[in-house]
């Protein structure tokens, strides 16, 4: 199932003019606040009417402003998860979960409900009212409610932005399971590079109402020219598998044949992991550095150097492990003679695991 979106709308401060496809898996709309991400979502859900819109889900035309009136939200069969959970305060958790199910065209079997309740860990909350739940619990119920409404697609509008770090960590695994276990396209809005690295199958980078880059998460996050949240949020995504655990507390990962060492991960050998390597955590050296305390040194070739933003420049390195971005100063670029095509070594100070649903 694929969603095709084309939108145009002029606001007083900026204009929206974009088009993209949303395939299966989680597609993250990535950009700063005010770049139009939420507006796009609201247009797809039907609760905002842009001047020009064409929205097609598989073969169902939800909206074609040239051809006639668009479908109202309740006929679109698109579930939405909001930043604020928006549970109905006058209904219990069970009744909230049931709300969309009773209007659904598709018969959602009771078995699916209990499966969802179990997946989201909300079995103990069913008789309670939303007010008594924590923010994380509320958001889990909201996810279940959207999924049980018989929706053919899910929109998530910064569902973690209102939660603290601990709650975020509580919810993220459920989105990963959504991506990996339920074949339903999800369009997920976020301005957090960590969330993007962890969840995205596909990334669509947005800036001031326009698409500035789209593709696989590795390609978009590894492109120094696409910086929807600025150089501070830049960081490449690397996929690896756990190779071995060592006696000194380190875990060895295999990233495209290259070995990477990280503090002990709770994962069995062979388990896939996503690594986010923030650009400011990477040091470049034209010669293979010796005598450094850093364990992880990746060698490769410089494939791209971005335009300078102030004194900072992003350098993209193609290594055996994948693309790595490094943020260095223009002075260093000049002093080291960094240029596209030159061999280079990336010293990775720390790599954060972009996934922690490991068992």
């Amino acid at each position, binding site marked *: 199932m694929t969603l095709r979106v084309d939108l145009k709308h002029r606001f007083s401060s900026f204009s929206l003019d974009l088009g993209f496809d949303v395939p299966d898996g989680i597609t993250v709309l990535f950009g700063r606040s005010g770049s139009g991400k939420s507006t796009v979502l609201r247009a797809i859900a039907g609760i905002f009417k842009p001047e020009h819109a064409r929205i097609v889900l598989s073969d169902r035309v939800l909206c074609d402003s040239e051809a006639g009136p668009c479908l*109202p*939200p*309740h006929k679109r069969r*698109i579930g939405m998860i*909001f930043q604020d959970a*928006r549970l109905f305060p006058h209904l219990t958790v069970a009744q909230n979960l049931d709300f969309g199910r009773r*209007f659904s065209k598709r018969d959602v079997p009771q078995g699916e409900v209990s499966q969802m309740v179990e997946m989201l860990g909300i079995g103990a909350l069913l008789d309670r009212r939303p007010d*008594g739940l924590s923010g994380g619990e509320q958001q889990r119920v909201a996810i279940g409610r959207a999924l049980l409404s018989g929706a053919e697609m899910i929109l998530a509008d910064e569902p973690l932005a209102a939660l603290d770090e601990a709650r975020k960590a509580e919810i993220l695994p459920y989105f990963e399971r959504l991506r990996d276990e339920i074949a339903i396209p999800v369009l997920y809005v976020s301005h957090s590079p960590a969330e993007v690295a962890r969840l995205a199958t596909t990334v669509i980078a947005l800036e001031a109402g326009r698409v500035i880059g789209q593709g696989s998460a590795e390609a978009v996050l590894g492109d120094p020219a696409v910086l929807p949240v600025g150089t501070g949020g830049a960081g490449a995504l690397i996929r690896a598998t756990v190779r071995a655990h060592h006696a000194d507390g380190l875990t060895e990962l295999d990233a495209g044949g290259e070995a990477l060492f990280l503090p002990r991960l709770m994962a069995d050998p062979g388990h896939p992991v996503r690594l986010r390597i923030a650009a400011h955590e990477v040091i470049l050296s034209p010669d293979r550095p010796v005598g450094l305390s850093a364990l992880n040194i990746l060698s490769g070739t410089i494939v791209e150097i971005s335009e300078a933003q102030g004194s900072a420049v992003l350098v993209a390195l193609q290594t055996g492990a994948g693309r790595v971005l490094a943020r260095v100063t223009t002075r260093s670029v000049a002093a080291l003679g960094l240029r596209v095509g030159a061999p280079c070594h990336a010293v990775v100070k720390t790599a954060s695991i972009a996934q922690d649903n490991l068992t």
Partner: protein
Amino acid sequence: MGPEEWQAIALSLKVAFWAALASLPFGIFIAYALARWDFPGRQLLNGLVHLPLVLPPVVTGYLLLMTLGTRAPLGAFLENFGIVFSFRWTGAALAAAIMGFPLMVRAIRLSIEAVDGRLEEAASTLGASPLRVFFRVTLPLSWPGILAGAVLAFAKALGEFGATITFVSNIPGQTRTLPSAIYAFLQVPGGESAALRLVLISIALAMAALILSEVLARRVSKRLSEGGRS
């Protein structure tokens, strides 16, 4: 207390009950329209609803007589279907309903405006049509205000005098409600003690209605916002 007094009390309760109940659906509809829809003539409708609040009640009663009296075209037309207002208790209920309508609409409108529109939005993305959103989300969440509005209209109907006496006169057992009875007792020598009894009963009924509305509203809003298990 004499049978005449009891009759007035019973009639008043009947008139006020039906006035509040029959005007409730209209009150909810108008309040919703004023709270949620943007349409031309919205201010005009708002003014019209509030007009009985500021108009002399006699004028309202006279206008009713002009439109719904047996000799008025609309009144004559409705009479074909057996619907008669003039000089009947139904007319007293209608007059009371119109006089209480601004209070009712105001209370309901405020509570509908207080319902978070984002919840209605969420309901629509869950597949609920606008009508279902109204009945499953908006209505239950504005229930305390609806209840308060209905009780206010009831209390106002208990005390309505000017429009009632102008429209349907002061017929014992038919249109002689509490205020009309008090007025009538005061017109005859020696009626003061009966009038005083009815005055005290009026005060008691009005107070009871207000307290009831307060208690009900509090209970409903407590149920709506209950933190723990239901």
